[in-house]
């Protein structure tokens, strides 16, 4: 699983094109790619959001994302995976997260990417602080996902 944390804006499509080229033409071997891209919106809860500060727990973030990838791999054995996540100062329109998985058939890739974003939202140690006008505040919780059953308070078992 390739994991990248980026302090600067990135173009998800340029990044995907490069990733698929290395080390070989990924999609010619694994015909199904399922991608999720989360972008900073210019509005949240009806209010203009000017910017976002994204804090994380260096090294635990990478460890936890690798653990997530390994768990997802058990139930949805994808062939190749990529997670790119922004940290630091983010403005509207910039990509926050990109998740991609590649597999031979669509079921594995679609399942893997959807479980991966769900687990990332609930477990990866990232925290968002929103700037609206002159006020800033920490986002308290993520919106719920698509009904995938994820424990609300993850624990090491």
């Amino acid at each position: 699983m390739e994991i990248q944390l980026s302090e600067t804006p990135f173009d998800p499509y340029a990044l995907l094109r490069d990733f698929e080229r290395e080390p070989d033409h990924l999609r010619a071997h694994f015909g199904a790619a399922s991608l999720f891209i989360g972008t900073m919106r210019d509005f949240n809860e009806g209010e203009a959001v000017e910017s976002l500060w994204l804090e994380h727990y260096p090294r635990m973030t990478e460890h936890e994302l690798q653990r997530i990838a390994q768990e997802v791999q058990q139930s949805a054995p994808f062939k190749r995976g990529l997670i790119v996540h922004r940290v630091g100062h983010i403005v509207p329109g910039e990509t926050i997260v990109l998740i991609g998985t590649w597999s031979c058939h669509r079921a594995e890739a679609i399942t893997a990417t959807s479980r991966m974003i769900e687990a990332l939202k609930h477990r990866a140690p990232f925290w968002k602080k929103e700037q609206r006008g002159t006020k800033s505040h920490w986002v308290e919780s993520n919106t719920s996902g698509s009904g995938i059953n994820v424990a609300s308070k993850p624990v090491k078992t």
Partner: protein
Amino acid sequence: MSIHVRYFASLRETMGRIEERLSPEGIVTVSDVWKVVHQGEAFPDHLLCAVNMAYAKPDSPVQDGDEVAFFPFVTGG
């Protein structure tokens, strides 16, 4: 040696500190770490904890040299 304690996000701000190092005496679990820095208070439901960069529970064991982190619910993605 010591126990390395770290705080993140809103908890870091309310604590007014990023990290600290505790003497390991009397510390057996994550709960014990929390009590040392919070005058005996119990570990609250609205926070998460990790030991050596893996999620832990309040009763997870802590040893000398461990890194223990406390933080609010995560909001990435």
